[in-house]
C-alpha cells in the first residue's frame, strides 16, 4: 500500500483528496502548513507527496526546496496559479509533475501513478513506451518492428523523454542533459529536433506534447 502525504491549507481540498486517495488504496496523512508538512514527511516517509504551491507562511516552493535536501520522494504540485514561471521553478527544484486546479480526479490519479513509477531501476536496458522501445545497450530505437533512424542528438532527446514518459520535462532540463556542456542557446535547436522526432514517430508512435512555456511530455498514442 502506498502512503501519500497531502500538504494543502484548504481543509475541504484535503478532505476530498483523502477520500479520493483512500478509495484507491492509498494510506493518507495530511498537513495544513509547510512546516508541519516537512515534519510529517520525515516522520511518515510517504511514497508520494501532493504539495500545494499557494501555502500561507512557508510557501510551497520553500517546502519543496527543504524536502529535496534530504528526500527524493515523488512530488506532485497542486496549483491554482497559472503563472508558468512558478511551475517551471518548482519542476526545476525537483518536483515531478503538476496538476492545475481545478483538476479531474482521473487526471490526478494518472499523474500520481506515473510519478510513482519513475523510480525505475535500470535492471533492463530497455525503455518501452507504447509501441516505442529504446535499447540503451545497443543505442537503438524501434517503433513496433520498425527500426528508427535517429541522429545521436535525436536519440538522446527521445531517450530522455521516454525515461520520463508521461511526465513533464522542462526545456532547461532537456537542454542541460542533451546538450550538456554547450553554452549557446539551444531552445531553437530543441524545437527543430522535436519536430524531426515527431515526424519520425509518425501517427502510430507516442506523442510529444508541448506545454507552452514549460516543456514537453511524451504520451502514449491515444492518451
Amino acid at each position, binding site marked *: 500500500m502506498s502512503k501519500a502525504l497531502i500538504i494543502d491549507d484548504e481543509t475541504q481540498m484535503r478532505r476530498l483528496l483523502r477520500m479520493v486517495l483512500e478509495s484507491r488504496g492509498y494510506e493518507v496523512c495530511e498537513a495544513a502548513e509547510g512546516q508541519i508538512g516537512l515534519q510529517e514527511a520525515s516522520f511518515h516517509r510517504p511514497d508520494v507527496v501532493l504539495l500545494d504551491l499557494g501555502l500561507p507562511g512557508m510557501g510551497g516552493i520553500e517546502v519543496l526546496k527543504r524536502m529535496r535536501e534530504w528526500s527524493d520522494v515523488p512530488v506532485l504540485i497542486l496549483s491554482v496559479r497559472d503563472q508558468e514561471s512558478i511551475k517551471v521553478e518548482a519542476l526545476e527544484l525537483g518536483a515531478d509533475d503538476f496538476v492545475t486546479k481545478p483538476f479531474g480526479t482521473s487526471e490526478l490519479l494518472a499523474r500520481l501513478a506515473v510519478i510513482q513509477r519513475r523510480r525505475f531501476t535500470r535492471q533492463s536496458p530497455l525503455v518501452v513506451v507504447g509501441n516505442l522501445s529504446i535499447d540503451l545497450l545497443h543505442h537503438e530505437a524501434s517503433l513496433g518492428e520498425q527500426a528508427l533512424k535517429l541522429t545521436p542528438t535525436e536519440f538522446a532527446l527521445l531517450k530522455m523523454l521516454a525515461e520520463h514518459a508521461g511526465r513533464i520535462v522542462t526545456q532547461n532540463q532537456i537542454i542541460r542533459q542533451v546538450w550538456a556542456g554547450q553554452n549557446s542557446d539551444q531552445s531553437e535547436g530543441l524545437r527543430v529536433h522535436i519536430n524531426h522526432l515527431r515526424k519520425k514517430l509518425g501517427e502510430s508512435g507516442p506523442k510529444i506534447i508541448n506545454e507552452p*512555456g514549460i516543456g514537453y511530455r511524451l504520451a502514449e498514442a491515444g492518451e
Partner: protein
Amino acid sequence: MKTTGRNKQPLTVSEVGEYSWGFTLIFVLASACWALLPYTGPHFAALVFLLAIVIAGLRWNRGPVLMMATMSALVWNFLFIPPQWTLHIASPQDVVMFVLFFVVALSMGHLTTCLRAREDALQRHHHEREQLLAEKHRAELLAESERLHRTLLDSVSHELKTPIAIIRTALDGLGEGNPFAAEIETANRRLQRIVENFLEITRVESDAVRPHSEWCEIGDVLHSATAPLQRELGGHPVTINGNENLPLVMTDGRLLAQALGNVLHNASIYAPSGTPIEVSVAVVDGALELRVRDHGPGVAEGTESRIFEKFFRAPDSAAGGTGLGLAISRGLMRALHGDIAAQNQPGGGAEFILRLPVKTRLA
C-alpha cells in the same frame, strides 16, 4: 565700479538695486556720522561703516558689498581722517588705521558673502536631495502598489478558483450517471470560465501580462488552443490549413494560444452546431496570420470593431457568456504587439484575423 559684477556676467536687476542701495546707505551713514563727529570722534564712523558692510554681506551679493567696503574707506578718509576734505592723511597712525580699515572692510565683506553663498548652496543641495528622495519615494510607492495589485489578484484568483476546484473534485467523486450532478458540472464549468475571464481581463487591463517570448512551433500553439476546447468544438469539425512547413516563430506561445482559443470558443458559440470552423495559418511579410473562419450569422453590420470591446455582446446573442472573450483576445494580441480584426465573408460567416509581427526561423 560697476564692472566688478561676478564672473563678468551682465548685471542683474537685483544687483543694480543692491549697488544703489549700498551707495545710498553709505551716504546716509556718512551724513549721520558727520553730524555726530563733534561728539564721537572719527573712529566711531569707521565702526558704523564696518557694521553696515557685515549686515549688507549677509543679504547682498559680493560686488555691491565690496563696492561698499571701498567706498566707505574712501569716504572715511575724505571726511573723517584729518586733514578733512582731502584724501591725504597726516599722521602715520591714521595711515595704519586707514589701511587696517580698508583690509578689515574688504575681508568682512568677502567673508560674509562667502558665508551666505555657502548657506545658499547648502539649502539648494538640501532642496535637491529632498526632491530626489520624494521622487524615489514615489517610484517605490508605485512599485509597491503594483506588487500589491498582483498579490491581490493572486489571492482573489485563489479564493475564486478553490471552491470551483473543490466542486469539480467532489463531482468526480459522485461518479457518472446522475443527471443532477451533470447539471452542476455544466454550471461549474461555466462559472470557471467566467471567473477565469474576469481575472484575465483584469490582468490584461492592468498591464500585468508579461509576454515571455521563445521559439514556438505553430503546431504546438494550435494544439494548446484547441485541446482545452474539445467539449465546445465537439459540434464543429475544425480544419487547419497551411500549417505545414511553417517556420518557428518568436513569441509567447501560451498567450497566443489563449487569444486564439477565445476566438475559437466564440466561433463555437455563435456558429450553428455542425457547421465547420476553418483555421488557416500563414507567415506573410514577417507577420504570422491566424485566420478563424466560421459559418455562422457573421458579425452585425457596423460592429466589426465594437465586438472587441469589453462587455459588448451581439444584440441577438444567446444567454450566457460575459462579453469578455474577444476583449481578452485583443488585449493579449496587443500585449504581444499584434492585433486582431473581424470581417464578414462574402459566402456568409465571420472571419477573425489574428496578426502578429514575428521573427521567424526555418524549422
